[in-house]
């Protein structure tokens, strides 16, 4: 480099949590060159966010930090707080709640600019407007006086980026900044970050769990597992030829548009304080040797520019390919071509303030065949969840009709709806929120049987254990509470509960969206298996186009309440006919070669 200050250099960072009484981050090194975008990837609980927070000195007294952190060449662990905003800035996943809700975005930005650049308010206001233009906020002058709640998530993220640029930092920590956004917005934000990097030469640490995003935006990547970096190097190198089995596992967990069945990684990240003596990944690693369990591996050079912490690194590119379960798409087996559910010219309205109505869905028609899976895709506000609600009888169609087994779907609150619940069940997005925190998993799975008065107690308990087994949990989970098990296990319990009444159709509304990719892959595999075993029809509502091929035969594409395209997964993904579908596909972050 040209003697420019290194944006970020972290050496031997150890972060200790007093309450856990164990180090959460151990001996971590991370550096970013000017203009470099470094990805930081790993499952939740691997320590990605904590690393960023520690680097910015944002951790409170519950934490103890040791090691060297240099922001823009200022090697000052203690004085980090004073350099925040100038040397380093950070953006977060949920931009809307990261802005002060009761101050306009213009005021927030102007104040920050005035403070960080020592400008008068009038000058700062001009700079603030320039920044809003720079981040491509539409109509910046008008939006200057908007409050965060009046802007969309993507627009607020632009404001957050403008705030981050206020102090002209050398390093930007971006903690899952696009995870909550729609794909098309995500790709716009990624482009924006790249162009800002090109313009300012700022370094970026980009935290994400999405390897597709890493491939899209990052130059280098560091893979974190259980508080350590297990592998780092250039992105393309690592994605093509992962050396660490964990990296390989993550890669093979990524669903792809091409439709490879993601494999996932069994088990979960050990909690700090419960880490095994040897390699922390050994208990989940298929390549583990006896010495892996006793000797902690150090991060050492693997090849040019690459480091790996593994006693038995994978060689060549066999690993990633082999660990994919198979290359089949979802079987295009001809199901009984008989519709089990029919949506006919359906429209659905929601009442809004002032007595008006908002048409969430209009004139939508498609069928769901028996034992078939249909993906309903679209961005937020496209009406895809409303389709699910219509099918469940939770909303009444304003026009048209919704049929199940040729009968109109009964509405919630009617006598018939209770019986209908035995045919169609829901798997919602957030498994924690959809389980009662104060009831055991077992009782919640059994509850539908009690409500519908099915079977004796012994039969119900038997059914409960059978279902726990079917979703891969086992009867020993019956007495656990939701907070005692992981997110993936909670989602399995929710699926077991949905299957309890032996429904014919499951509505999965973003059922894997809040899970780690490694877990998501296994839930998808589970759904496939259960679909076969219980002969289910599936409606899979999702914003992630990459999981369609591995699970669904048909795709319905929704835009602004209308169905813009419907067809087989093959058709829609390979030869999309509607421009919107093409835009969605183009925005999917993944290696372009897989699109071919």
């Amino acid at each position, binding site marked *: 480099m040209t003697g420019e200050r290194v944006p970020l250099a972290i050496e031997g960072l150890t972060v200790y949590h007093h309450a856990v009484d164990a180090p959460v981050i151990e001996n971590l090194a991370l550096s970013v060159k000017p203009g470099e975008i470094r990805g930081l990837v790993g499952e939740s609980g691997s320590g990605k966010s904590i690393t960023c927070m520690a680097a910015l000195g944002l951790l409170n007294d519950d934490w103890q930090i040791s090691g060297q952190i240099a922001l823009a060449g200022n090697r000052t662990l203690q004085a980090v*707080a004073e350099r*925040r905003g*100038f040397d380093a800035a950070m953006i*977060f996943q949920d931009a809307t709640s*990261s802005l002060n*809700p009761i101050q306009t975005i213009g005021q927030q930005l102007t104040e920050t600019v005035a403070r960080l650049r020592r400008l008068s308010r009038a000058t700062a206001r001009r700079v603030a407007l320039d920044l809003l233009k720079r981040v491509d906020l539409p109509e910046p002058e008008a939006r200057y006086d908007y409050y965060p709640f*009046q802007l969309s998530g993507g627009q607020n993220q632009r404001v957050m980026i403008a*705030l981050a640029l206020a102090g002209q930092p050398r390093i930007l920590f971006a903690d899952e900044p696009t995870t909550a956004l729609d794909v098309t917005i995500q790709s716009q934000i990624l482009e924006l970050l790249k162009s800002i990097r090109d313009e300012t030469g700022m370094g970026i640490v980009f935290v994400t769990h999405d390897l597709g995003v890493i491939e899209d935006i990052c130059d280098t990547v560091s893979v974190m597992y259980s508080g350590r970096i297990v592998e780092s190097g250039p992105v393309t190198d690592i994605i093509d030829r992962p050396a660490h089995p964990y990296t390989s596992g993550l890669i093979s967990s990524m669903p792809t548009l091409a439709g490879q069945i993601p494999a996932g990684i069994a088990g979960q990240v050990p909690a700090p304080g419960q880490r095994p003596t040897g390699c922390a990944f050994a208990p989940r690693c298929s390549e583990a040797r006896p010495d892996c369990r006793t000797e902690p591996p150090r991060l050492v050079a693997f090849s040019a520019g690459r480091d790996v912490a593994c006693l038995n690194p994978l060689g060549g590119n066999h690993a990633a390919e082999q660990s994919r379960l198979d290359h089949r798409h979802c079987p295009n087996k001809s199901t009984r071509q008989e519709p089990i559910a029919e949506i006919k010219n359906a429209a659905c309205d929601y009442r*809004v*303030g002032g007595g008006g109505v908002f048409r969430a869905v209009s004139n939508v028609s498609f069928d769901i065949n028996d034992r078939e899976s249909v993906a309903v895709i679209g961005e937020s506000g496209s009406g895809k969840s409303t389709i699910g609600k219509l099918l469940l009888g939770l909303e009444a169609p304003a026009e048209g009709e919704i049929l199940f087994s040729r009968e109109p779907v009964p509405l919630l609150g009617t006598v018939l709806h209770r019986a209908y619940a035995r045919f169609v069940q829901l798997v919602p997005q957030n498994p924690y929120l959809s389980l009662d925190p104060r009831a055991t998993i077992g009782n919640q799975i059994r509850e539908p049987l009690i409500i519908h008065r099915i079977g004796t107690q012994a039969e119900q308990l038997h059914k409960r254990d059978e279902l726990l087994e079917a979703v891969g949990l086992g009867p020993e989970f019956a007495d656990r509470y939701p907070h005692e098990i992981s997110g993936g296990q909670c989602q399995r319990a929710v699926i077991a509960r949905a299957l309890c009444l032996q429904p014919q159709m499951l509505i999965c509304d973003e059922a894997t969206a809040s899970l780690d990719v490694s877990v998501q892959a296994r839930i998808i595999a589970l759904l496939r298996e259960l679909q076969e075993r219980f002969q289910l029809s599936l409606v899979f509502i999702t914003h992630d186009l990459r999981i369609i091929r591995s699970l669904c035969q048909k795709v319905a594409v929704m835009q602004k309440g209308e169905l813009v395209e419907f067809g087989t997964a093959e058709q829609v993904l390979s030869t999309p006919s509607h421009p919107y579908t093409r835009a969605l596909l183009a925005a999917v972050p993944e290696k372009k070669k897989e699109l071919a």
Partner: protein
Amino acid sequence: MMIRVITRRILRALLTLFLVVTFVFFVLRLTGDPVSAMMPDDTDPAIMDQMREDWGLNRPLAVQYADYWMGLAQGDFGNAYRDGRPALEVVSERIPATLTLTLTGFAFIVIVGFPLGILAAINRGTVIDRGIMTLSVTGFSLPNFFLGILLILLFSVQLRLLPAFGSDKWYNLLMPVFTLGTAGAAVIARFVRSSMLEVLSAPYIRAARARGVQERQIIWRIALPNAAIPTITVLGFMVGALISGSIVTESVFAWPGIGRLLIDSVTQRELAIVQTIVMLTAFSMVVANLTVDLLYLMIDPRQRYAATSGA
């Protein structure tokens, strides 16, 4: 739009007033007769009947009720039975004393409650926090008449620092205000603390720290205004607590306010005075609630937006 929202709230307030007046009117007349309360037990029944006749108490309730409203419409709140003075005049004389007491009490609640709550929140888990919270529990656990008596025993009887009665010097206010405001200040401190803690863990606080906003700025400029929003509701309730608290406090300290007048008037069945006081109290509650609603709209842009978009 804004005007419509405010008009709607004022109309609702008037309805509240109407219901309160009606309720009190009937309850008072069904629970005791002013004449027998006033005259000795051995009075000639004929005289008592004559008095009822004179005061219009023997008419059907509905007629009396209609008559009462007719009077109100003309600004006539009725007269006291004993000395025949207009009820409004009798009550008005007492307003300044009560207003002094309750307003000072309210200021005490805010001035003591807010800083203690903030102090506890920013020193969460420390001795300071625990100390303030212990004080707070003690504060709202003590019934205020008991606290008042304790204060008199300590400062007037034992230490002889403050007079137990009187209302003409500023220091006469000290003990009554402390008695009246302690419980409220304790509740507010607690509420401000939890509200501040919630706000301080919000993502926007973390984001502000990440861009280097000074901790003092974060607390006063960002956290406090956000934490104040839910606290305003509680402050609205406090007005009610202050009014009922002032009745007891005025009795303990022989404070010449409305509270004592109310107690005397109820025992003497001075219907017009009781009604006027109740109406006045209800009116101040309604005004307090209206103020809370308007303050909400002022502070919270989201509420403003929801209100003006007709939701």
